[in-house]
């Protein structure tokens, strides 16, 4: 089920990506409305990272195109922020936390002007938002995995964008911090920002996200929570893993959302 948005901020048209002639993302076609917290869900290898990279123009699609704010990416880059999976960089690089967060300001400031007091204030404020204000001078190799992830989040926030693509921003983050960051993301949403988040925890996804994109090489579903977060679609996305489906059915019943085929769950 694919529900298209009116006045979308993200439009993905017929997007396919192949690696070595093997399709890993197949004709994805969906759109996302503004001011939503969007979960991109799917099993490992489903093509979630690939989808985000294709949207950010980091891999070449074999077909299709993407529009952000009704424009090609190149025209709106300052309004778009990207959080890569943290494994994509070398954390032994000689630099400290504040410097990494300040990298988020390059989009606005450019490379050739020095940082203003405002840039530094914003960077510090963003560190505070992710609870890392005490680590600003810390060498990045001396951070735990979850702390590294939070630094990446802070860098993205420092960009002050309108549209965020985050690839597993909560990987390795403890429950309390995840909770406070999710609240922060909700706050950003209420300011009209749109956030697309690759996420693996169905429980918190269900609790916080309002729109879902379900992927498994092809696009299984895209739409508001009430329309697409149901048993069939989850089953289609993840296959029928019973334990998982039980958790979900409990969730859905609790929320009083439509459950189909209640009987064959038992």
């Amino acid at each position, binding site marked *: 089920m694919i529900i298209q948005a009116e006045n979308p901020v993200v439009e993905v048209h017929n997007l396919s990506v192949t690696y*070595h002639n093997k399709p890993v993302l197949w004709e994805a076609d969906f759109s996302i409305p503004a001011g939503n917290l969007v979960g991109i869900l799917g099993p490992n290898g489903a093509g979630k990272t690939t989808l985000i*990279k294709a949207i*950010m*123009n*980091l891999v070449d699609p074999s077909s299709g195109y993407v529009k952000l704010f009704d424009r090609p990416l*190149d025209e709106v*880059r300052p309004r*778009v922020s*990207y959080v*890569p999976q943290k494994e*994509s*960089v*070398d954390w032994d*690089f*000689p*630099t*400290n936390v504040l410097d*990494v967060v300040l*990298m988020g300001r*390059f*989009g606005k400031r450019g*490379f*050739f002007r020095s940082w203003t007091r405002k840039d530094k204030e914003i960077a510090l404020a963003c560190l505070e938002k992710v609870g890392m204000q005490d680590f600003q001078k810390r*060498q990045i*190799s001396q951070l735990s995995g979850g702390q590294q992830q939070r630094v990446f989040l802070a*860098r993205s926030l420092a*960009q002050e964008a309108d549209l965020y693509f985050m690839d597993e921003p909560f990987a390795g983050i403890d429950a309390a911090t995840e909770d406070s960051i999710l609240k922060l993301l909700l706050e950003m949403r209420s300011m009209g920002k749109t956030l697309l988040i690759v996420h693996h925890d169905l429980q918190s996804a269900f609790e916080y996200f309002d729109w879902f994109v379900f992927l498994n090489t092809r696009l299984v579903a895209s739409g508001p929570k009430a329309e697409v977060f149901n048993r069939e679609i989850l089953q289609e996305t993840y296959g029928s893993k019973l334990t998982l489906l039980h958790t979900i059915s409990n969730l859905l019943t609790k929320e009083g959302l439509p459950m189909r085929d209640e009987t064959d769950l038992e």
Partner: protein
Amino acid sequence: MSAFWIILTGSLVAASCGLLGCFLILRRMAMIGDAISHAVLPGIVIAYIFTHSLDSLPMILGATSVGLLATFLIELVHQKGKVQADAAIGLIFTFLFSCGVILISSWTKHIDLDADCVLHGEIAMVPFELWITESGLNLGPIAVWKLSILFLIVVGLIYVGYRPLRLTTFDPQYAAAIGVSTGFWHYLLMGAVSMTTVLSFESVGAILVVAFLVAPPAIAYLLTERLDHMLLISLLAGLISAVGGYALAAALEGAIAGAMTAVLGIEFIFAYCYYVYLRK
């Protein structure tokens, strides 16, 4: 006087190589200098066939562009061909080097050029190749002039490009996502490395260039946690080895290039001890 020229030559090479080497080792491409220095051979030979001279702008340009071609081919084989980066480097540089050898043996039979004389400069010879103007004015060794210009280019590149080079080295994906051309900075850096390698090889020889590209940055990496400090320490480590190496060679009456490299080794041991026992 010749001591002064040799130390100055060594220092200039050490400085240019040390600065660029910092970015190379952080990009895990430390040995690319070695590869480029061999890969540029066909460029040198072709330029030589056209100009019949060994120290000319065309030769530097020929070598630099083949150096760039080499880095391009390495990227291509690595990215598209699923070959690991170090294997790709080995593959491409031996291929290009052998092209150069074939060119030399088949096209330049009657010309005095062999792989050795192209690739193996000798730092002790620097003071004897002077730039003397037509009016007979002695302007000092040619190598010092060339290497000074090179040093200014390298410093200029790093001064202007410090932030984009740092960003594209640390997180190329994020850099690309905010619209920075990672390819542009990669090839600019590699162009500078090619030019540096060619000019330095010609005047100070093989081991010393590779040593200066790798050792001072490796030493600096152990001593600091900041890239700007790393660049400065790398410069300093290079200078110490140029001066100390000359003194050592004089004392032992040994080879200068070897002595400079040996001093780098000693510096590295000290840096390593500091890293292991003292750094918090």
